[in-house]
């Protein structure tokens, strides 16, 4: 799968790596640089890029966006009480971030990595282990090149969520962020991410969830229409831990969300969910791999897409069960609601199973709004637009239900309402 000859474009970008970063971080970056060079950049002929053109993600520069500053778009999760950490155009904005500490949680900027020795065992490690069976060259390049990011460690239960807010001022910013999150045994942490953050944003987030620890992740991408983004979530789950991740993608010209979750300890639970809303020039891709490497674990993948006016939704997902991961309960559903005839849904939902005592299933559907349901609502006096909005919300409900925090779920529902209100047929 690896291509030994680096492609020229990759080489050019990699040569931009700043030298002189000291200690273990420099070593991790050097190793990642070698990985990225060996993998080359993704192309249309790569199996897991057949549905998505990686062009804008691998181009020499970020796409130029005319409206340099964003005005009027309310920040997602504005009303949520959290420790706010702000990045603007891919750079940490200390002035805009909360200064106060959060008990039990340590937050260090990537630039101050020597202060967070624990991150040595995490930075680039999960990414490096996450290239099989699918190479993720953008993630390796990120590990090598990321300019900024946060190292977050939860030692106990965090009283409030940690919220990373991405803001954008420039029309051509090319942000590359790398975060590491570690939850010690028994710790609890909710990580919230909101906003666009750059004209082109590439992120890698590596999450190590300790024994019995609980990690919740709620992310809202958008609502801007022009930016492109590639995100990678790598997670390793210890015994009896819990991992829940929900992503709302509203707008964005091209968004590729990759997740690679390795369930390494018995009795752990991993739920990944996504709701994507696209109207017009919108291409959104969820590429999700869950590897069951331990007995008696549960995983769920719930991905829903609402598409209109030529918008494209992509889902590639796999439940991979290793021979010793008996008693696995794996579930995966990917569904698209095509609101008009131009929209399209491309999916490759996979199962790869080597253990016999398992229960795994997946389903995938694509189609228009159910005419019978629409008729039912209209017959009861609902105008067409409202009836449609109601059915779209009902369609997305299974994904939104994966959010455990009621206030965050309510905030996501408000964002959905808002989007549907602004994008009526």
């Amino acid at each position: 799968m690896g291509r030994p000859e680096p492609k020229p474009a990759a080489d050019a970008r990699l040569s931009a790596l700043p030298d002189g970063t000291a200690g273990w971080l420099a070593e991790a970056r050097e190793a990642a640089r070698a990985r990225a060079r060996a993998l080359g950049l993704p192309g249309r002929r790569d199996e897991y890029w057949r549905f998505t053109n990686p062009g804008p993600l691998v181009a020499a520069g970020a796409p130029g966006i005319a409206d340099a500053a964003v005005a009027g778009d309310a920040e997602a999760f504005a009303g949520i009480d959290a420790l706010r950490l702000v990045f603007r155009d891919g750079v940490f904005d200390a002035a805009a971030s909360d200064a106060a500490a959060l008990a039990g949680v340590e937050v260090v900027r990537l630039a101050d990595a020597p202060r967070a020795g624990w991150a040595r065992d995490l930075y680039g490690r999960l990414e490096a282990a996450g290239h099989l069976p699918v190479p993720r060259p953008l993630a390796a390049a990120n590990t090598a090149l990321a300019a900024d990011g946060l190292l977050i460690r939860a030692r106990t239960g965090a009283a409030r969520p940690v919220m990373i807010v991405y803001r954008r001022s420039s029309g051509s910013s090319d942000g590359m962020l790398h975060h590491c999150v570690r939850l010690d045994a028994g710790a609890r942490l909710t990580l919230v991410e909101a906003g666009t953050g750059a004209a082109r944003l590439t992120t890698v987030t590596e999450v190590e969830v300790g024994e019995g620890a609980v990690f919740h992740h709620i992310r809202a991408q958008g609502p801007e229409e022009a930016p492109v983004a590639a995100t990678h979530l790598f997670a390793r789950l210890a015994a009896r831990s819990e991992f829940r991740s929900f992503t709302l993608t509203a707008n964005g010209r091209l968004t590729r969300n990759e997740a690679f979750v390795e369930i390494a300890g018995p009795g752990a639970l991993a739920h990944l969910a996504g709701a994507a809303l696209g109207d017009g020039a919108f291409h959104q891709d969820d590429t999700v791999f869950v590897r069951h490497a331990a007995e008696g674990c549960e995983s769920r993948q719930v991905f829903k897409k609402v598409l209109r006016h030529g918008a494209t939704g992509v889902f590639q997902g796999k439940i991979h069960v290793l021979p010793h991961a008996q008693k696995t309960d794996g579930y995966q559903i990917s569904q698209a609601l095509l609101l008009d005839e131009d929209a399209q849904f491309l999916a490759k939902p996979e199962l790869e199973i080597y253990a016999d005592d398992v229960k795994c299933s997946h389903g995938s559907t694509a189609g228009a709004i159910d005419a019978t349901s629409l008729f039912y609502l209209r017959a009861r006096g609902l105008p067409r637009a409202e009836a449609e909005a109601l059915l779209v919300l009902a369609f997305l409900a299974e994904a939104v239900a994966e959010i455990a925090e009621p206030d965050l779920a309510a905030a996501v529902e408000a964002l959905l309402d808002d989007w549907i209100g602004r994008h009526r047929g």
Partner: protein
Amino acid sequence: MAALDATRVRDGLDAETVKTVQAMAGKYKHGWQTDIETEFAPKGLNEDIVRLISAKNGEPEWMTEWRLAAFRRWQGMEEPTWAMVDYPAIDYQDQYYYARPKALATKPKSLDEVDPKLLATYARLGIPLKEQMILAGVEGADGAPAAARKVAVDAVFDSVSVGTTFKEELRKAGVIFCAISEAVREHPELVRKYLGSVVPPTDNFFATLNSAVFSDGSFVYVPEGVRCPMELSTYFRINAENTGQFERTLIIADRGSYVSYLEGCTAPKRDTHQLHAAVVEIVALDDAEVKYSTVQNWYPGDEEGRGGIYNFVTKRADCRGARSKVMWTQVETGSAITWKYPSCILRGEESQGEFYSIAIANNAQQADTGTKMVHLGRNTRSRIVSKGISAGRAQNTYRGLVSVHPRATGSRNHTQCDSLLIGNRCGAHTVPYIEVKNNTSRVEHEATTSRIAEDQLFYCRARGMSEEEAVALVVNGFCREVLQALPMEFAMEAQSLVAISLEGSVG
């Protein structure tokens, strides 16, 4: 038997049962060979061999050129590696591409003239080459009017067709059923029009190879409005050693016609792998219906994975006409490697494609099989039911494509893929591709993977069944939807094959 010994035996299984089952493992009842004098083309593959095959078949110039063009293209192609199958590199120069029993050097005028050894071979396989006979195992079954059911057979032995039965009776109905080598000579206008029109010679590595070296196969033409008066069937037998079989089948169902076609295949037990790369093309015009059923029982190799057929097959139907319908049913129990995706191009409006499959992989077998349903016409429909069963150390993959093009409005697909794992050393995989490009169509895919339910086994065993009987019963139930889609002649064979293929897998 090492494969089985190493399989962890679950608690509660009695040791006697396991021993009995182990003793029965690896049974392949068609593993004998016919001792018959065979002439071979020289080993290896080059333009001379392609010309030689063409000359042996007495082909016209255009056919030879067609083959050569394919061969030249093939030389620049790479063997595909995307399937989840793993096998050592094939040396394409270390094979015979043409083998013909000497007795068939001059084509027998009728079956009465055929070497009795060949007839005996087919008799032993249960394939009747005498017109008064009917398929073995059907007589008196379930009160079916067995005597009334006729099946015309084209028997292909290594590289050549031995003979075709019921030709006269079929000719009266206007149906052409003969060896493809004969069709090239007798019906060049039909062959030229349709050969390569569904699977072009450039299609893929194995299809291109086949286009260059195919030696025989069956040709069927059902004229407009004719319902073929009997089932047609081709029986493929590989006998010679180190010989690849490359057959080509072309079925044309003209407007409003109907034909049901059965295909069977077996090969002797050998320690070396043998190559089989076939191409099947089906053309269905307006309102035509073709039912194509396969029981693939090539030698699967032994428990250690020694020997067995490498089966790389391209099968595709072009539902060219409005309201045409093609139904693929396959029971895949044999072959060391299976690489096969019978597909439907749903071009005609309201055309329909169906795919019913049971793929069983035991011991060291690897199967990567599925279908493609390409919806191009409006209001087209497709249905996919795939049942994969893995046992021993086998790997079994369903790989499929459902593609609904922007213009294929109002189309519908339903796909169901179920996998069953027996034992903890095998794998079951599902790799579906779904592409939906309009919103008036509806596409649904569902897949499950599980093991045989303990409560079902317990229920059967509590009623006095042995473990393996219980497994066979549950598995037959698991496969029922597909078995029911088979013509009766095959359903019975398939049902017993399912049981035989799984022998030795309990535990």
